[in-house]
């Protein structure tokens, strides 16, 4: 054997790359199949959640139907990829490459650079900052008609219409229930006392409208409110709900290092159990109103900050730490109920005509949703995913299905409003890369 080896001439041949990739794909496919089979067997052995001796389960991983692209996508770690993509785009671009780089990006995605607030593109250190650019004042005039419902952002209207029987037609006949989109549960104490029509106070359009106008004084005097009452909150204590540690004497300027307005979140709960009051409790009971919906898709080159379409009061927010499938029109056509799967922030509240909700939905490349007045909100982050898993496990231990979201209520600026007031056209937040 030694002499054979010694005397044999060694010759190297290149392996075709495609063959290599195919081989790796097969190996990966085989591993996923084996893992899937093992998981099913393990679940069969452990029995259902809630049974004595059964181990509490993590959030069920979503397995959507659809063509092979959707299946492949559902096996990918989309959130991790999205976070990686975000990190990649936070890498600072060399100073002299910024202008050509951003101009190339603008040329490809159709960004109108003449509208960008910052004329000198060098100011944007990386693509993430450029993506979250601001616009020049005045380039997006608000429709002068006060009765107009405004477009919350740049984009394309994918779908609009009236909701019949709780179904929203996503695109071309794909429907999903509004419960799936907005979630089913309402924290009773903060809402039911203002239940639809029960007190009559908040749903009286004229009164609410006047309240919103008077709110403008309140909003303007928001700082005054915090100072005059001497009540202000340090964020960690808010998050932990431990009210005792809030500093009661200092004004808003002293509030830790945050220089922005205080966050409007008054309470965060992640352990909601099914069976509490549904969200449509907010709808006024008289039948003169209908439920409408509109879906606006933001293209990569669009201005990605979103604004308030009308004067309204947001009372609470539900954060669904879902998946991050792409929301491209193609996938919206092929993936049923895409919006009920993706990570999204459901802002629930009221406007002069009754119920109003605003749902920014994340996507793989644009996974982070920012809400200016809600600093506790963390989207597309490992912490919220683990918190969601923990909440799912606790719900499983209680033998209840996981509600699917973490909810926060917004602090009432005044007893009348019962939430955080937003003015038409006011910037509410935006989508960020990764």
């Amino acid at each position, binding site marked *: 054997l030694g002499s054979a080896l010694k005397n044999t001439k060694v010759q190297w041949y290149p392996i075709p790359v495609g063959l290599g990739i195919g081989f790796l794909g097969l190996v990966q496919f085989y591993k996923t199949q084996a893992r899937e089979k093992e998981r099913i067997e393990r679940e069969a052995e452990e029995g259902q959640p809630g049974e004595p001796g059964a181990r509490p389960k993590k959030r069920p991983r979503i397995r959507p139907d659809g063509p092979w692209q959707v299946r492949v996508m559902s096996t990918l770690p989309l959130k991790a990829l999205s976070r990686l993509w975000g990190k990649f785009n936070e890498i600072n671009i060399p100073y002299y490459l910024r202008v050509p780089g951003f101009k190339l990006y603008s040329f490809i995605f159709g960004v109108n650079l003449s509208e960008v607030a910052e004329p000198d593109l060098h100011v944007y250190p990386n693509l993430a900052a450029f993506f979250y650019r601001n616009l020049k004042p005045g380039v997006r005039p608000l429709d002068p008609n006060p009765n107009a419902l405004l*477009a919350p952002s740049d984009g394309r209207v994918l779908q609009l219409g009236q909701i019949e029987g709780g179904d*929203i037609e996503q695109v071309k006949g794909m429907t999903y229930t509004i419960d799936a989109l907005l979630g089913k549960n309402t924290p009773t104490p903060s809402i039911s006392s203002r239940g639809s029509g029960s007190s009559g106070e908040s749903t009286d359009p004229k009164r609410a409208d006047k309240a919103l106008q008077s709110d403008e004084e309140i909003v303007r005097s928001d700082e005054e409110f915090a100072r005059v009452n001497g009540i202000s909150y340090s964020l960690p204590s808010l998050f932990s709900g431990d009210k005792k540690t809030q500093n009661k004497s200092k004004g808003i300027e002293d509030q830790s290092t945050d220089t922005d307005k205080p966050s409007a979140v008054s309470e965060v709960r992640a352990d909601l159990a099914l069976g509490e009051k549904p969200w449509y409790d907010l709808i006024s009971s008289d039948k003169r109103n*209908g439920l*409408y919906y509109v*879906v606006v898709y933001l293209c990569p080159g669009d201005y990605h900050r979103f604004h308030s379409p009308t004067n309204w009061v947001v009372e609470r927010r539900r954060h669904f730490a879902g998946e991050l499938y792409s929301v491209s029109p193609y996938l919206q056509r092929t993936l049923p109920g895409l*919006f009920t799967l993706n990570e999204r922030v459901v802002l629930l509240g009221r406007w002069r*005509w009754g119920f109003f909700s605003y749902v920014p939905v994340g996507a793989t490349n644009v996974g982070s949703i920012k809400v200016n007045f809600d600093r506790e909100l963390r989207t597309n982050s490992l912490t919220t995913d683990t918190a969601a898993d923990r909440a799912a496990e606790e719900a499983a231990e209680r033998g209840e299905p996981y509600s699917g979201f973490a909810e926060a209520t917004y602090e009432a600026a005044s007893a009348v409003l019962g939430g955080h007031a937003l003015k038409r056209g006011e910037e509410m937040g935006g989508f960020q890369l990764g």
Partner: protein
Amino acid sequence: STIVLVFEAPLNEIPGSQGGFRWAVEKGQKVKMGQALGYV
């Protein structure tokens, strides 16, 4: 990324009339922030 608005508004009982909520845009239309989507 996408934004979904779900809201309650007066029904437009008589099509074409000025009462109730009326859409000002169509499916597939490009919009700019601040543009009217509809009127009540």
